[in-house]
C-alpha cells in the first residue's frame, strides 16, 4: 500500500516530530485517524452548523445563536449532550453487531477518501469503486440493524433501505464509468489531472453527456445512501425514524454522524470526479512545488476541495429543506426507470465523444 505517492504521510509525520522509520502500518493507521479527526469530524460540526443556519434563514427563523459566538459551538454542545445520555439495558447483541458493521463499512472508505494530490492513501485503478463496496455493506448493516429491532418501523425501514440501495447503485456505477472514459483511468490522481482549476476544465462541463452523468451521479448517490430529499428509506413519516427509531444517546450520535459521513464522502467523490477535484491554478501549484512548500500546497488543495464539497452539500440541503420527501416506491421507480436509462445514455454518449476526440 505504501508507494512513493504516499510519502506525504512520512513527510507529515516527520514534520510533526515523530521518529523516522516507523512500520508502514503505523503510518497508515495514523493517516486514517488524522483524516478522521482533522478533516471529517470538523467538517461534520461545521456542516451541521451551516445546515442549521441556512435552514433557519430559509425558514424565517433565527437558528442556533446561544452557544458560543453566533451559536458556533452548538454542534459540540449537541455531541456532548448525546454522549452523556445513559444507554438502554435491553440492547441486543444483534443490534450492537449491525451497528458496528454499519459503522465499520462507513469508515472503511476513509482509506480511499481523496483529499488532495498529496493526500491520497489508496490510489489504484480500483480506488473509485471501493466506496461502492462500502455503500453496499453499509446498506446491509443498516438493513439488518432495522430487521434486528423487532419492531415494524425497524423492519420496514430496513427493507426500504435495501430496496433503495439496490436501485441507486446501478445508475451510480454507470455514471461513474463516464468519468473514467474521459480521464482514461480510475486513479484519483488521473481523474484530478484530467481536470483543472477553471470550471471550463471540469469534467461536468466537458460535454453534455458528462453533464447528464453528473446529475445522475449526484441523484443516485442520494438514493444509494438515503440522503434527504431522497431519504424515504430512512425517514418516512409513517415509520417515524425507521432504522434509527430505537437508537438514542451515543448510538444515535454514532448513527447520525455516520449518515453525515456518507453524505460527505459522496460529495467529496462527486467533486473529485466531476467538479475539478482539488486542482488549483497551474501556476500556484508549480510555484509552491518549486518552492518546496508541499504542506502549504496540500492544505490549499484540501481547503479548495472542501469548499466545493460544502457548496454542493448545501445546495442539496437547500433542495431537501424546501421539497417534500418522496415515497420509497417513487424513489426506486425514478431510479430504475429514469436515472438508469439516462446513465446508460450518458455512458454511450461519453464513449462516442471520447472516441471521436481520439480520432
Amino acid at each position: 500500500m505504501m508507494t512513493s505517492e504516499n510519502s506525504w504521510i512520512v513527510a507529515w509525520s516527520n514534520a510533526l516530530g515523530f521518529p523516522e522509520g516507523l512500520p508502514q502500518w503505523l503510518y497508515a493507521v495514523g493517516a486514517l485517524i488524522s483524516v478522521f479527526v482533522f478533516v471529517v469530524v470538523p467538517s461534520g460540526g461545521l456542516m451541521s452548523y451551516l445546515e442549521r443556519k441556512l435552514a433557519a434563514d430559509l425558514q424565517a427563523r433565527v437558528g442556533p445563536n446561544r452557544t458560543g459566538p453566533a451559536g458556533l459551538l452548538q454542534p459540540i454542545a449537541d455531541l456532548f449532550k448525546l454522549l452523556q445520555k445513559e444507554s438502554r439495558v435491553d440492547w441486543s447483541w444483534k443490534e450492537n453487531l449491525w451497528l458496528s458493521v454499519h459503522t465499520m463499512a462507513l469508515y472503511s472508505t476513509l482509506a480511499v477518501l481523496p483529499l488532495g494530490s498529496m493526500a491520497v492513501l489508496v490510489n489504484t485503478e480500483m480506488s473509485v469503486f471501493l466506496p461502492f463496496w462500502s455503500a453496499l455493506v453499509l446498506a446491509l448493516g443498516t438493513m439488518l440493524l432495522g430487521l434486528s429491532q423487532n419492531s415494524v418501523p425497524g423492519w420496514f425501514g430496513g427493507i426500504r433501505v435495501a430496496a433503495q440501495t439496490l436501485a441507486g447503485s446501478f445508475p451510480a456505477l454507470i455514471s461513474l464509468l463516464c468519468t473514467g472514459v474521459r480521464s482514461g483511468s480510475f486513479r484519483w490522481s488521473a481523474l484530478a489531472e484530467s481536470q483543472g482549476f477553471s470550471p471550463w476544465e471540469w469534467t461536468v462541463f466537458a460535454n453534455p453527456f458528462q453533464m447528464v452523468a453528473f446529475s445522475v451521479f449526484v441523484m443516485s448517490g442520494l438514493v444509494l445512501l438515503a440522503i434527504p430529499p431522497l431519504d424515504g428509506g430512512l425517514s418516512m413519516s409513517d415509520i417515524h425514524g425507521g432504522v434509527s427509531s430505537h437508537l438514542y444517546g451515543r448510538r444515535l450520535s454514532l448513527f447520525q454522524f455516520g449518515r453525515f459521513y456518507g453524505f460527505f464522502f459522496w460529495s467529496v467523490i462527486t467533486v473529485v470526479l466531476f467538479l475539478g477535484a482539488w486542482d488549483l491554478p497551474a501556476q500556484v501549484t508549480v510555484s509552491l512545488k518549486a518552492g518546496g512548500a508541499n504542506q502549504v500546497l496540500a492544505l490549499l488543495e484540501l481547503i479548495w476541495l472542501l469548499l466545493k464539497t460544502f457548496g454542493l452539500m448545501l445546495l442539496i440541503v437547500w433542495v431537501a429543506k424546501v421539497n417534500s420527501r418522496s415515497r420509497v416506491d417513487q424513489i426506486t421507480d425514478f431510479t430504475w426507470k429514469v436515472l438508469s436509462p439516462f446513465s446508460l445514455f450518458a455512458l454511450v454518449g461519453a464513449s462516442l465523444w471520447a472516441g471521436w476526440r481520439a480520432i
Partner: protein
Amino acid sequence: MNLTQPESLKTDLTTWIIGPYHGSLPAPMRLSLSLDGEMISDCHVETGFLHRGLEKSCELHSWKAAVAYSDHLDPECAIFGELVLCLAVEQLSELEVPERAQSIRVILSELARISGHLSFMVRMAKAVGSETIIHYLLRDRERILDLFELLTGARFSLNFLRFGGVSADVTDGFIERVLEVCELIRIRMKEYNDLFTFNFGFLKRTAQVVPISKRLVLASGMTGPNARASGIELDVRKKFPYSGYSKLDFSVPVGRGDSGILGDVHDRFLIRLREITESMEILKQLLDVVPSGEYLNRKFKRDFVVPAGEAYARVESSRGLLGCHVVSDGGPTPSRVQFRTPTVANLMAIPQVVRGIRIEDLPVVLASLDLGIAEADR
C-alpha cells in the same frame, strides 16, 4: 384505493398497532392495521384518548360556564364551539343578537377558519416531510392569533362570546389590523402555491392519492371541506345561514379534480387553500361596513335563565358541520348539551378510506382528513 399501485403483494398479513401516540398520527388515537406487505388490508380505529367529559361538565355548571367549556371542544378553532352553543341558547331563549355583535362573531369565525386551515396545511407539510413551509405557515398563523389576543386577550381559548352578543366591543385599530393580515396572507398565497400546490414533490405525494368517493362521503356523513372536495356542495353558511352570512356575497369552493381524480388528497388540500381566499373575501366585505350599535343584548344579565325546552343550532366550522343540541329544564344549569362534531364522521370513514393504500400514504391521508381529535373525543 390507490390507483398507481397493484392491489396486493400476496404476502402474509402483518399486524401493526400504531398509537395512541405516534409521529405519523395527527392526534392521539390507536390504529390497528393489518398489513399485506406494505398495503393496508384492514384498519380498526380506536379513539377516546382525549376524552375530557365536556358535555357532562356543561351540565354541572351554569349556562354561562358552558361557553367556556364549549371553546375547549376544538382548541385550535375555539370560536366555533362557543358560537354554536350561543346560537342554540339564543334560539331557545329567543334572544336577539345585535348586528354589530353578529359581525364581530363572523369576523372571529372567518379568522378562526383561516387559522384552522393554516394548521391543517402545517400537518400536511409534516406528513409529506416538507419542512420549510411549516415555518412559513406558523409564522402567518401567529398573526391571526395576535388578532385574537388583541380582541379577546387570549390566543386559543377565547371565551369571548356571550348569549346575545360578544363580551367586548372591537378595540381601536382592530379592523385595520385584520385588513393588514388579510393583505399579508394574500401575498403569502404565492409562497404556499409555489411550495405546495404546484410543487412537483408535493403533487407526487398527493395527486391522485386516496380519493374519497361521493358515495363514501354520503354514507359516512362527512361534511365540510372533505365533503366539498369530493364534489358535494354542502356549506352550512349557505344552506342554513346564521349570524348574517346570508347578507354576504361569497362562493363555496367545490372540488374540481384538478389533479385528475375528484376528491383525492390534493383536492382536499386545495379546497382549504381556496377557502382561505373566500374567507378573506368575507372579511373584507364585513370590515367595510361593521354596523354600529350595541355589542351585547342588554337582556342578558347575571341572573340569565334559559326557558325550558330544547334547541338545535349548527355552524360551519373549519372541519365541517358542527351542531349543538341544548336541553333546558328552566334551571340554572343546562339539562343536556350535546355536540355533533364533523371529525367523528371522518374517523368513521378511515377504515374504508385507508383500505388498499400503502402505509407510506397513511400519514398523508390522515393529515388530509383534518382530524380534530379533541372535538371527537370531547
